[in-house]
């Protein structure tokens, strides 16, 4: 055991933690905007899945992973539009709609994948994002290999945290979003368009979740497999709650889930005698523990999950 816990082990572990927290962080930041405006979005899982597939298709067709990201955003927006129309315009239960979006996404992605690449599915090779070491910073001891030898999406994802914070707390948009989520009627009275704000926030969550999915297929696994998101979208929903609907809290939550994921991969490899399946369970068990008792109930936006009908 002692040989396992060397400095090198910790450096690769933390580098992997940073990388693996990104898809959860991205999806959760988007989910935060949706929930802050009052719309529960458990369709994040499905939006990530379609992002993962569309990312691969975009990169396959054009050869550019950046175009892949654009495709992924398109896919995320498509499902987010459905979610927004159902919840905001029609007032259907948010959770039920999210479930339907997820079912639709599982069908759409596996169907489109087979229709494009054949029923016997061998992984399709596509151009993916490569690590981009930042000159100067990459050579810093410890911090360099952990933080500054990642792919570009990792840097962008972490830059989005302060940006999201800025938008939410320091702009009139952010104020409008928070007001709509806390007290839609009051927002309406002061001339804020509740429907428009909620649509935009749900679409934003679709965009972020789409990119999060493309990160999985173009920045991590470099291929598409059925159901490859495997619960990360749901973990992102948990991260929003665990992070108390705040960008900084969500960052912390995503890093915890990323650590659980990174740890399980490494522990599987070193051969501890413990069945590898136990490690595979780790991120999900960590989520269960995080959701049990560690969360205060009072912090949720007051109008979360409630539809608003203008009289």
């Amino acid at each position, binding site marked *: 055991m002692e040989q396992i816990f060397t400095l090198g082990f910790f450096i690769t572990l933390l580098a992997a933690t940073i990388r693996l927290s990104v898809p959860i962080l991205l999806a959760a930041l988007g989910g935060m905007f949706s929930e802050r405006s009052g719309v529960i979005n458990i369709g994040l899982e499905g939006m990530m899945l379609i992002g993962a597939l569309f990312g691969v298709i975009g990169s396959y067709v054009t050869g550019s992973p950046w175009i892949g990201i654009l495709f992924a955003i398109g896919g995320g927006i498509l499902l987010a539009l459905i979610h927004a129309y159902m919840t905001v315009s029609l007032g259907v239960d948010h959770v039920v709609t999210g479930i339907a979006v*997820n*079912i639709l996404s599982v069908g759409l992605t*596996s169907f489109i994948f087979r229709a494009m690449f054949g029923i016997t599915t061998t992984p399709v090779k596509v151009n993916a994002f490569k690590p981009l070491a930042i000159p100067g910073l990459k050579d810093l001891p410890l911090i360099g290999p952990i933080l500054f030898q990642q792919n570009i999406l990792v840097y962008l994802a972490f830059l989005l945290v302060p940006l999201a914070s800025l938008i939410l707390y320091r702009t009139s948009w952010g104020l409008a979003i928070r007001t709509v989520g806390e007290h839609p009627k009051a927002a309406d009275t002061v001339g804020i368009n509740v429907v428009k704000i909620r649509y935009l926030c749900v679409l934003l969550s679709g965009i972020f979740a789409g990119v999060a999915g493309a990160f999985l297929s173009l920045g991590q696994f470099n291929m598409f497999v059925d159901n490859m998101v495997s619960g990360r979208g749901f973990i992102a929903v*948990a991260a929003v709650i665990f992070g108390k609907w705040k960008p900084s809290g969500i960052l912390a939550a995503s890093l915890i889930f990323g650590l659980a994921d990174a740890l399980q991969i490494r522990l599987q490899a070193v051969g501890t005698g413990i*069945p590898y*399946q136990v490690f595979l369970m780790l991120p999900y*068990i960590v989520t269960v523990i995080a*959701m049990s008792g560690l969360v205060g*109930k009072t912090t949720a936006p007051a109008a979360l999950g409630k539809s608003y009908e203008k009289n």
Partner: protein
Amino acid sequence: MKKDLLLINLVVPILAILAALVLGAILLLFINVNPLEAYSVLLFGNLTSLYGISEILVKAVPIIMTGLAFTFAYRTGLFNIGAEGQMYVGAIAAVVVGLKLGHLSPFLAIPLSLLAALIAGGIWGGIPGLLKAVFGSSEIIITIMLNYVAVYLLSYLVDKPLREKSGFYPQTDMIGENAFLPVLIPNTRLHLGFLIALLFVVLVYIILWRTKLGFELRAVGLNLHAAEYAGIDVRTKMFLALALSGALAGVAGFTEVGGIHHRLLDNFSKGVGFDGIAVALLGQATPFGVVLASLLFGLLQVGANSMQRSVGVPANIVYIIQGLIILFLLGGTILARRYQKKKAKGVA
């Protein structure tokens, strides 16, 4: 009034199914398949033979159980998204009993494996129920997370401690033959599990609509605060609802093991837990509606496999159709209500 209910409960679901099929047909045109040819196989291909019909029923059995599971919690105002995992642990328990006690008389072996599945599923549903009652944790997230835990638990069990004696495949040995669910019609796979599922349909109806417990559960689902004010112990009811919901889903594992596979395999279900959610919504969260919707989903899924074989259409198109049915149904119900309100206003 009666006509209004008919619109919501019958016309809207039928229109939702038709609309989903039309969109599916457009997808088929995109991949250069004649929708009429494909749909004749999908919808009618298996209705012309006794074997085809029996396969539809076989497919519907576990979906009925997971549909009942979702319905039970949903009526209490809770979302059990964990039927998949609860079904897995139910299957594990049923197989363990089948392996150890499968030599006993069928009159013992079968009820005992059913009981084991009920208990295991009940525990797996009871955990989120307990966390909900004690900490107020989101049962949605916890039930989903426990799905993945169950998948890896099953994977571990068939990989190591329960692996077959020859050790070749990651699966258990066959359970004792006396624990097999008897086949109802010779030369088909239709097994006793179908009747057991129908029994649970009646049972769920009786519990929810004919007992005090059911009344209290539904009261919690209709208005939590009013129920609390009326003196109902809301937390205990929530725990009970999720535990019983899990037990129902556990039975799906029992029917699949006892009736079809006769052993435990890795990943033996392909989303039956999620099909259950869809059929419960389509069936308006009523036991009888769940049966009808499960038969439809059984028909679609068996038909989709035939369609893949004969026309070469990826069978997964059925999940697109299922997702669309739910979306159209949910949206359509709201639109129909708005239409009724408008009409009522116009009359007055």
